[in-house]
């Protein structure tokens, strides 16, 4: 799972899809995850990194992760 390489991601958490002209904003945690996805990190490795940094239960992270990925897919921001 990887963020499309054409997607512009700013340090302030703004995403821009140049193919559609769509813009989105991400909160700091989502921004961190998007950064990992940009590096083509495996989902499990990315989740482990988030669990290590934030006080969050694994089941809650799984749920939020699935939500985020669904949104990214819906807006055609993922390569695969």
């Amino acid at each position, binding site marked *: 799972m990887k963020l499309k390489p054409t997607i512009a991601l700013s340090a302030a958490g703004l995403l821009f899809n140049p193919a*559609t*002209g769509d813009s989105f904003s991400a909160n700091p945690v989502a921004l961190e995850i998007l950064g990992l996805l940009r590096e083509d990190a495996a989902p499990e490795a990315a989740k482990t990194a988030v669990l290590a940094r934030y006080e969050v239960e694994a089941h809650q992270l799984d749920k939020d992760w699935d939500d985020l990925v669904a949104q990214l897919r819906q807006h055609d921001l993922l390569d695969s």
Partner: protein
Amino acid sequence: MNPARPRLTVALTGLNAVDSPGPGVAVARALRESPAYDVRLIGLSYEALEPGIYLPDLFARSYQLPYPSAGTAALRTRLLEIHEREQLDVIIPNFDAELYNFGRLAPELAAHGIHTFLPTAAQLEMRDKLNLAAFGAEHGLQVPADMRLFGVADIPKAAAQLGWPLVLKGRYYDATVCHTPAQAEQAFWQLQARWGAPVLAQQFVAGQEINVAGLADGRGGLLSAVPMRKLFITDKGKAWAGITIADDALPALARRFAAATRWRGGFELELMRTAAGELFIMEINPRFPAWIYLAVGAGHNQPAALLQLARGEAVSDFNEYAVGKMFVRYAWDLVVDNADFQQMASVGEL
């Protein structure tokens, strides 16, 4: 005046910068930024309240033209009158309906030293909205199915063929999405009264509205294509804000159009991208769009290049355009003296 750039006097129409705007003011702004010429602009209007007339920083003078329905002879007389006073170098007409008359006069204008770079009558016909479906079929371009309506009695047949909702379009401008027979009848009468018969019924295509502003060299080559996605659409369906986007399929489509038609000059492809990713050509406008200044902002000054084409100069393909450039249109109240309006309305020039 920049002494490095030769002075050129250019007349153009489409000064109606209103809620359904003509492209003239945007084209004028682009021409003022021509890297090749120091452009002096002459406005050509049809109505005394076209806002561009009252922009003296843009237009040195403005003159009223006879309506296209007055014919070629009346237009010729008026243009030569204006030429005698202003020594025009180039004319850029910006309305669909006037292009036939200007095209017929082009050789005569050229003999007077007035250059144009216009699509031919055959090119205008093939992309005419009444012929668009046949054009698409001939060139393998995806175009919504349509049917000509000559009376309200044709509406049930159109609905049976094309389904609901139906899009009813005027001969030159305006479109209405109709969800019921009653809406379709009302739209038919309104469109016929305004633009004449036939009215066009078109298959409704849902999706994202994307437009491409293009410039072609008349020999089958595309010089520039700048795609824009509409971000804010007015109740008249006009883009009030938009953003340049990167999608190789869009310039490729413009290139196919330019090659298939050997198009001369500016054009606009009005497209719809469906959720499945299909691209439909909804309309092809034979002139620059009202948002053409966005293309300038993205690095493609198509109107300035058109000047060079009109003067027979070589124009190279543009390089990449800037992606993510946005335009946001605004309304601005011009305060003018009533005497100026009276002069334009009565004498036909200002």
